[in-house]
């Protein structure tokens, strides 16, 4: 606690020297939780603004992908996916709703569980979501025979897109566990001040201080505060496995739209296990409509353009028990975190 207080004092001093508004974006759901849990936003000087970016994989999954996977389930295809993804509502309801209508839906903690379910249900489709941290596990499972609907995404192109399209971002608290896989060196392609941090209050505060130091000195480099888990080169075996099975393609992000090179498409050599190919006849018939609740501001919240408390539905008609948007569904979503820790 003493070191936190001293770090806050140092942050206040350097913020005073900078003397203009600074927006720092965290882009990892676990950092969103760490900042709120420790009340770090409230400790910041008036000119330091901490904003939440698209770090929650469930939240950034596009409505079209939710609608497609729900349509597959309603057509009788068994679906497995990671926890929170079953509750995200789409135009035809959520996977949870599909299960209530008789669909076979299996929330899993690990992809090994999906591989076990597949032995009983050979047509099982795994709904693959998540960034570079999770994509290697899906690649492993595809190589071991699992059929996958890939909504996986690469995070680094999204950071570049954010920098180009949101001129208010002055620096990134860069993701901890994505960086375990990709390594600190690969982040240097993003031309902004960055600090990869751990998840303790002190880690985040050190990250903020180092970012402010860079901004004061007009630097744009990658600093690695989370050296206890992140190396310069990352986990090469896991990273290479992603690109053995997937190729980079245009990715659809809720709120951000289409970002070239940010999606992970299953390579042709594994097309027999690509649910988008295998069930093309069902997916081609899905009618995509943008009937998503007009007042839900998840898309803007994901981009750091709006805070949860400025959404008219937040904690009123939209709650964890009755979520309208994925930002309230996922435990890493900005709205859910704000609800849980406020």
């Amino acid at each position, binding site marked *: 606690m003493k070191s936190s207080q001293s770090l806050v004092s140092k942050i206040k001093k350097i913020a005073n020297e900078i003397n203009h508004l600074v927006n720092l974006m965290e882009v990892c759901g676990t950092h969103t939780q760490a900042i709120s849990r420790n009340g770090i936003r409230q400790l910041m000087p008036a000119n330091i603004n901490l904003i939440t970016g698209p770090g929650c994989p469930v939240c950034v999954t596009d409505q079209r992908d939710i609608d497609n996977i729900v349509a597959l389930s309603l057509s009788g295809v068994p679906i497995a996916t*990671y926890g929170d993804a079953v509750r995200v509502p789409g135009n035809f309801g959520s996977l949870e709703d599909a299960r209530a209508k008789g669909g076979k839906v299996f929330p899993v903690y690990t992809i090994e569980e999906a591989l076990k379910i597949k032995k009983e249900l050979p047509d099982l489709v795994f709904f693959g*979501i998540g960034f570079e*941290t999770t994509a290697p*596990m899906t690649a492993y499972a595809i190589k071991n025979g699992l059929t996958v609907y890939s909504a996986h995404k690469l995070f680094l192109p999204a950071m570049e897109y954010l920098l180009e399209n949101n001129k208010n971002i002055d620096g990134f608290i860069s993701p901890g*566990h994505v960086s375990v896989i990709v390594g600190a060196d690969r982040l240097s392609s993003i031309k902004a001040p960055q600090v990869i941090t751990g998840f303790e209050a002190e880690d985040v505060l050190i990250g903020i201080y180092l970012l402010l130091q860079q901004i004061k000195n007009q630097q744009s480099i990658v600093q690695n505060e989370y050296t*206890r888990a992140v190396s310069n080169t990352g986990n090469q075996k896991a990273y290479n496995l992603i690109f053995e099975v997937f190729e980079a393609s245009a990715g659809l992000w809720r709120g951000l739209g289409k970002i070239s090179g940010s999606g992970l498409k299953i390579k042709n050599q594994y097309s027999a296990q690509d649910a988008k190919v295998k069930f093309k006849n069902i997916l081609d018939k899905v009618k995509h409509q943008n009937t998503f609740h007009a007042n839900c501001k998840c898309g803007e919240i994901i981009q750091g353009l709006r805070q949860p408390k400025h959404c008219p539905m937040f904690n009123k008609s939209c709650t964890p028990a009755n979520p309208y948007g994925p930002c309230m569904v996922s435990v*890493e979503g900005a709205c859910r975190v704000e609800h849980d820790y406020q």
Partner: protein
Amino acid sequence: MCLAIPGKIKTIKNNIAQVDFSGVIQEANTSLMDVPLKKNDYVLIHAGFVIQKLLAKDAREILKTYEELSKFSE
């Protein structure tokens, strides 16, 4: 979803490790690692896979954060 948790390897056989997470033993797949792993190594686990080998002191520090997070999530 990108949360990774540290644990200590109790046994390891054919790319499957039994990992001790603060007294709870669970399986973790080691196929994504290109460094050799052995009993008593500390590792970082994400979605059932070992993604990094850790130093013991670093694992303890990361574990402390995870326990705080779990407390708040209950």
